[in-house]
């Protein structure tokens, strides 16, 4: 039995987990559900000894593994203790074959070589490994060529190989699955659930973290609901004998009950007043029209979307992660290959690249602030004016020589100072380096940079990701303000449905890259959770 006693974890001053008590029994599938940021991943990280936990100050509380206190400083220790983990982002080595990956660090070696040179210098027996991989894949009922390179597999197949690697381990006592079906289609997800049940039947305790409530109900013996880092309730569940595609009424009721406890009561803070919302004027011509628009963003594809975006509105896009919510903006900006047709202001767009889009007054705020949004080693002034200087020749001194034009530091500084006041950026001075700021303030700098180009259409990806609660509110307020004062059109993608509901005029819900529904913001959270699981409001009882 794996027991968690009073586990708490604090990230950067904010509690991610508070006093978690859990018992995971061998032979049971224990489902853990919760909305984004409820602490599911943190819990798994603690259990599997990921470095990020010890690097951020460790955790409080006790882990008890089979009546022995346990603490894992790195994943190797957790593995040695019999805790395996299947990662959301695949930990497969692309250049090794499927069988090598499955047997990794547990290779069969020729006994003579082990006797002479010891275990680490034992000569690997490839045919025995291959045979073992074939056997494991066979037991799992997965049809895969063991000699194919892992890098050449599709995402679904990768998930199975990853599972096979853990399945193959002797001495495995507990298996942690982090959203194992997030990348799988319907059939594959069912298959995976069958395998998970097989694993549990071997006496292994499985921790199954998922957003997909219907799956959790299908396979878990016990379900724990997390909200804001606390256990809300823990309930017994009787998984149906075989996973079903059809949703019985009982199941649907259960899903509704679950989604209600996941969401809990919400306190609305930044809320757009109804009068602020854009008038629903059907005669208005759309600013952006998409027709079977697809984006091939690795791990987050968008599949044939038909959508009109009207000037002056705030459009929300939401889905579970990996279902395509973050790919529309980058796709239109030309960061990923796209298909389909796009009209901007009634003119068709043929080629997609960032500088052209900026010229057309389309902007984007990326979710990867530190990686793509900011020049971390440069000052705030430079960060706020860089794109405008480069792409729009704003804040540039007049010069007779077109190739020799210098930035106008005075103008830059004036703009930066005004932004600092306007956006209320908490910094020592505008000459401070961007990496020194907190996430929220960095986001504000990104917003200042985007506003400097005066876009008419702005894509915003996960604006509040990794930002503390207070800053979240001010960011949201800023977005509303930008829309109001500049008459900007905003397309905001986020997994935080609650936030989208507060600022958006309508919200597009995606499932597996396809549009399920366009919902008004006054729908309940449970409706949204259903839509995120692919159940359309308009057509209940069927999957999108």
């Amino acid at each position, binding site marked *: 039995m794996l027991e968690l006693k009073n586990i708490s974890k604090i990230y950067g001053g904010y509690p991610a987990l508070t006093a978690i008590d859990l018992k995971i029994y061998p032979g049971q599938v224990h489902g853990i559900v919760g909305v984004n940021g409820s602490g599911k991943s943190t819990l798994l990280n603690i259990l599997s000894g*990921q470095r990020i936990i010890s690097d951020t100050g460790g955790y409080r509380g006790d882990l008890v593994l089979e009546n022995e206190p346990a603490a894992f400083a790195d994943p*190797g*220790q957790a593995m040695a203790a019999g805790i395996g983990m299947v990662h959301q982002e695949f930990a497969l080595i692309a250049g090794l074959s499927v069988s090598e990956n499955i047997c990794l660090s547990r290779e069969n*070696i020729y006994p003579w070589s082990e006797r002479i040179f010891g275990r680490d*210098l034992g*000569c690997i027996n490839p045919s025995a490994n291959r045979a073992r991989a074939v056997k494991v894949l066979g037991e799992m009922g997965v049809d895969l060529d063991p000699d194919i390179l892992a890098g050449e597999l599709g995402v679904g197949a990768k998930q199975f190989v990853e599972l096979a690697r853990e399945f193959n381990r002797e001495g495995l006592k507990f298996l942690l699955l982090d959203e194992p079906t997030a990348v799988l289609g319907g059939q594959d997800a069912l298959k995976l659930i069958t395998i998970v049940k097989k694993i549990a039947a071997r006496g292994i305790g499985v921790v199954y973290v998922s957003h997909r409530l219907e799956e959790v109900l299908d396979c878990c013996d016990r379900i724990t609901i997390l909200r804001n880092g606390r256990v809300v309730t823990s309930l017994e569940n009787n998984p149906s004998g075989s996973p079903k595609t059809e949703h019985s009424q009982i199941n649907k009721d259960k899903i509704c009950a679950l989604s209600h406890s996941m969401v809990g009561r919400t306190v609305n803070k930044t809320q757009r007043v109804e009068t602020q919302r854009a008038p629903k004027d059907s005669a208005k011509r759309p600013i952006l029209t998409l027709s079977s628009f697809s984006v091939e963003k690795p791990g987050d594809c968008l599949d044939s979307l038909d959508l009109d975006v009207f000037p002056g509105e705030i459009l929300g896009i939401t889905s579970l992660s990996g279902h395509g919510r973050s790919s529309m903006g980058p796709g239109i900006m030309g960061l990923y290959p796209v*298909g*389909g047709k796009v009209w901007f202001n009634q003119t068709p767009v043929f080629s997609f690249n960032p500088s052209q889009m900026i010229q057309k007054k389309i902007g984007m705020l990326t979710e990867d602030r530190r990686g793509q949004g900011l020049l971390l080693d440069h000052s705030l002034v430079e960060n706020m004016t860089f794109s405008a200087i480069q792409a729009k020749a704003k804040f540039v001194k007049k010069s007779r020589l077109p190739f020799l034009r210098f930035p106008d530091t005075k103008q830059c500084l004036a703009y930066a100072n005004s932004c600092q006041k306007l956006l209320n950026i908490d910094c020592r001075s505008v000459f401070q380096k961007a990496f020194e700021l907190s996430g929220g303030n960095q986001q504000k700098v990104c917003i200042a940079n985007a506003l400097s180009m005066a876009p008419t259409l702005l894509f915003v990806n996960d604006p509040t990701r990794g930002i503390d609660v207070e800053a979240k509110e001010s960011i949201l307020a800023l977005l509303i303000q930008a829309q109001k004062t500049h008459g900007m059109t905003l397309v905001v993608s986020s997994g935080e449905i609650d936030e989208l509901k507060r600022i958006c005029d309508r919200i597009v819900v995606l499932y597996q890259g396809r549009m399920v529904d366009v919902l008004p913001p006054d729908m309940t959270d449970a409706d949204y959770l259903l839509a995120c699981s692919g159940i359309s409001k308009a057509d209940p009882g069927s999957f999108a």
Partner: protein
Amino acid sequence: MAVFKRVPLIFVILCCVAFYYADMSFPFVLNQVITRFIRDGVMVLALIIPIRAGMGVNFSIVVGALCAQVGLILALDLGLGSISGLVFMAFTGVTLSVIVGVIIGLCLNRVKNREMITTIIIGFLATSIYQLVFMVGYGTVISPSNPEIMLSRGIGIRNMVDLELFRNLLDTLWLLQVGKIEIPVFMILLVAAFAVGVHYITMTRLGKQFTVVGQDHEKAMTLGINVGRVRIKAIVISTLIACMGHLFYILNIGMLNVYTAQMNTDIFSCAALFAGGATLVNARVGHAFLGILLFHSLFILSPQAGQNVFGNPALGEYFRSFVAYGTIGLALILNAKHRDLGHPNFSVSNQVIKNKG
């Protein structure tokens, strides 16, 4: 991968052309190649494991070479000769190289993804420390027991030290004469033994760990592999092999050029490995052997060919350097290009645009 097979092909063609113009007898060339093979063979093998562990070319094999030289000079200083001296210098060299190997490994763990430039600089640094010790330290701080190896002023080791005591100790062992071709069977077997050793390591669990770390050290870490340790092991093995390789090299030459013998060992070994078709991410024993054969054939032939065609032997000398650095440069650039092409976004984008655009 097809791109890389071009490099050995270019070398084959160049060798044929050079052989045609050099007008040398085949047995002579072959003898020379065999000599070079036993001189440089082990050194090239030293590069294989760090490449497999994703650390790029370990230019700090120079440090391993210096360890060998230190062992050798100490043996001479103590007046040890013959087999006992050989054992002493091998032991000293290996001990030293393991120690510096660990230190280099620790350094490289701090500069992930910038290993190659770091190893180059470490090589320079070690060389200057070595020179400082033997040029200034000997005779001042360290008192020599063998005055013959000292400069006449009493401070510093001579530039050139004769290895009378060790001459022809290994080279002539089991010497086989086939027509005009001399085959030093023992030395060839020795190099082969090192090759088998390196190849064996690649087939072990440790070798698999090298591969995994080389492919993706973040994933390796989540899989519970101690990445830092594995990388240190790779560098230690490499430095150790380099030390032994340099020992064979000096013994084969029969003279120790105290301050310059280690020069260019890294560059030439690296060029030879690349000439055999190795890349920055993949190197095998086969690459090393093919590379030594091709690279050194060209090395032997090109000065003479230069003399015959242009009447200027210096041209051949320049050509040597050109070939060495050119090979490395070419391999590095081709490798970078290959990585770009291998990037998932890149390959996807081309397909999709073709299909849908």
